[in-house]
């Protein structure tokens, strides 16, 4: 193929791979180090622990005041939105680990957050925030995420047969 034009730089070719290889390795290691630094730097102090309601209560003392992300199912009749004044509102609801067999409820409070459209009975809630000593979980700003039950199909079907 283009072989002839290559051998014209034969000498360079013979020499180059070795120098290139060291350069290549050194450069690669430096770049990798930079990326590891970026990741570690971004993550340090910014990750949350991910807990279910029961896991939270099991280790409540240790977890109070820490950055958490809790997940659970919303109890429909616990949802309450209160407009205190023009600037302030409170959104409250309870979540549990299992709707069929609700154990302990975790009370979620969110200040000045709109009530998400998906916040309804049987929706799955993911909440970022911190818990206080009384077991009230205060959501961060923008820390409410909801998954709709129909999309992930957690609804109980009427008796299915094959």
């Amino acid at each position: 193929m283009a072989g002839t034009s290559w051998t014209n730089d034969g000498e360079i070719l013979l020499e180059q791979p070795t120098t290139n290889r060291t350069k290549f390795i050194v450069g690669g290691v430096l770049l990798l180090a930079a990326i590891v630094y970026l990741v570690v730097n971004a993550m340090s102090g910014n990750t949350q622990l991910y807990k279910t309601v029961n896991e939270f209560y099991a280790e409540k003392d240790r977890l109070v005041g820490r950055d958490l992300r809790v997940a659970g199912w919303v109890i429909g009749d616990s949802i309450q939105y209160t407009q205190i004044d023009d600037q302030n509102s409170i959104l409250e609801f309870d979540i549990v680990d299992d709707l069929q067999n609700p154990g302990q409820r975790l009370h979620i409070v969110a200040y000045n957050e709109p009530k998400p459209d998906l916040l309804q009975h049987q929706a799955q809630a993911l909440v970022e925030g911190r818990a206080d000593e009384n077991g009230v979980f205060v959501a961060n700003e923008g820390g409410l995420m909801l998954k709709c039950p129909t999309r992930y199909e957690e609804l109980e079907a009427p008796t299915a047969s094959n």
Partner: protein
Amino acid sequence: MIADIGYLSLLIAFGLAVYSAVSAWYGHRKNDLRWVESARNATILTFPLVILACGTLVISLVRSDFSLEYVWRVSSRDMPTYLKITALWGGQAGSLLFWNFLLAAFTAAAMARKWDQQRQLMPYALVVASITQIFFLGISAFIENPFIRLESVPVNGNGLNPLLRHPGMIIHPPMLYLGFTGFTIPYAFAMAALISGKLDDAWIRTTRRWTLVAWLFLSLGLILGGRWAYDVLGWGGYWAWDPVENASLMPWLSGTAFLHSVMIQEKRNMFKMWNMFLVVLTYCLVILGTFIVRSGVISSVHSFAQSAIGPFFFGFIGIMLVFSTYWIIRRKDDLRSKNHLLSFLSREAAFLYNNFLILAILAIVFLFTYYPIFSELFTGEKGFVGPTVYEQALAPLFAVLVLLMGVAPLTMWYRTSLKRLEMGVRWPAAATAVFVLVLFAFGIRSWGALVGFGIVGFSAILTLLEFWKGTHARMRKGEPLWTAFSNLLARNRRRYGGYWIHLGVIVMGFGIIGVEIFQQDTQMRLQAGASLQMGNYEMVFQGARRYEGPDDLLITEAAVDVYENGRFIKTITPRIEFYTRTGQTMTIPKARSTITEDFYVLMVNWEPTSANAATFRVFLNPLINWVWAGSIIFIIGTLIAAWPNPIDEKATQIIRRPVSAHATD
């Protein structure tokens, strides 16, 4: 009754896929082409069978046949027909069947079209594509069967979630799935090249357009998903680094890396092993992505084992990974390149940096997405990584990538002198400095924004210059401006389509920086007649009314007058829609939308009893429309790059014919 026909055809399709894999392998082994031909026919036949299966499900959906569990789950009598049809991909079982439809379509098309050109690759490509089909048809037929019946027939169905009744959400899943399934074809041909040992770039030429088309659909899927989030979810954003979003972003990233590195293989015959690796990686990420998107396992606290299809997906990915790695290792000597990188300042080196950056981004997204699993594995406690961490870690890498995007076209193959590069960037750099100073003079003090806009601006100038240089060269040959420009695009579709895509990314870059750094939001209750100020905008709440909409809809609509710099612009009507039967609410934002910003208003609460007061959440999203404009430019660029070139097509066929004739005798 009709559903039984659907299920039966699904079963037959599954049987045919098994038959095809076995007989293609056997025929090739025994050197008996009749078996291979028969396998090919079987594979092509799966397509009409899967159409039939999808068709019967659609008919059942349209007729509201609630004896089928799936129909009950995702539809209801009062849904309009178009929604009943699109409910085919509204739930898990239906989506997987739809996935199968697209996969069968792609596979049949590839086998029908490329047969005569690539005889040697075909038997193996058939085997690999059929194995993928066996897996997905098997899941549909035996595990997530959409044709399961209910014992008692309910009167009405659940209905599709109103949030999913948005045009963006109706087209978004098919686009994503088209992208996902499309990548099966390059993978099948890559594996065929590995197994057959025909490692020249025939497989790359054969699959180039497939890859680009799959990538196009994946891009469209990502963009439409973002637009849907912005229009419907009402948090004023378009991307949240949600595991489901990341699951589609990751194969897109590895696909992007592949589209770039393939060019080095074509020009310099290097990076063969790397390209194989990227194809395998993309394929595995596609399968993983399908699973994540469908099951939602990462975002929920349920472990993988609890998901019914989880073990199958992981088993399949594992098998394909081992299978692919085995063949890459076995062919490693043939994949080794005789050519070396001659300089760190060259086009091929630029592609190498591009791949390094994209893979680094991919690795970070992967680590963060699966951090709950990794952290549980290593510390025994599930951790989670939020969007800010993604942004902090990835912003510098994206910045360097955009910079590279601008500079790389200035490099030459083999080697480029530093001086040449300097000449190329001197004036653009000066212009960028002026641009940044102007931004500073206009009061922008955030250094992140100054650096970001600077980099994006610099790459914008360099990319536009590429177009200008090419057009100018043609104009000197006597072509008028417009002819020169369109000829430039038509004659070098891949190259200038690529630059066009870069331009789209750059425009999106301006938008992303604008929204990320300068977004403002507030929430406030307003009495009728009261007003709220944000930026240059003022909104006056005129009052709200409640009325009944179509079906079971109850609509609360606010009238909000928007003023810009004190001048009345228009009245917008943000709404709350309430679906009385399901109890589902939908908050519909309305915006005053301009090229510089969106003034985006949501009514989040209305109190008809206590006077006429409503609570509003208001966002000022600077440059948000640049994100959408950039997306459109991006898609146009991909179309330019992927558009078939009749001249090329003929030429390759003429060259290819004698080769394939020779190969088959």
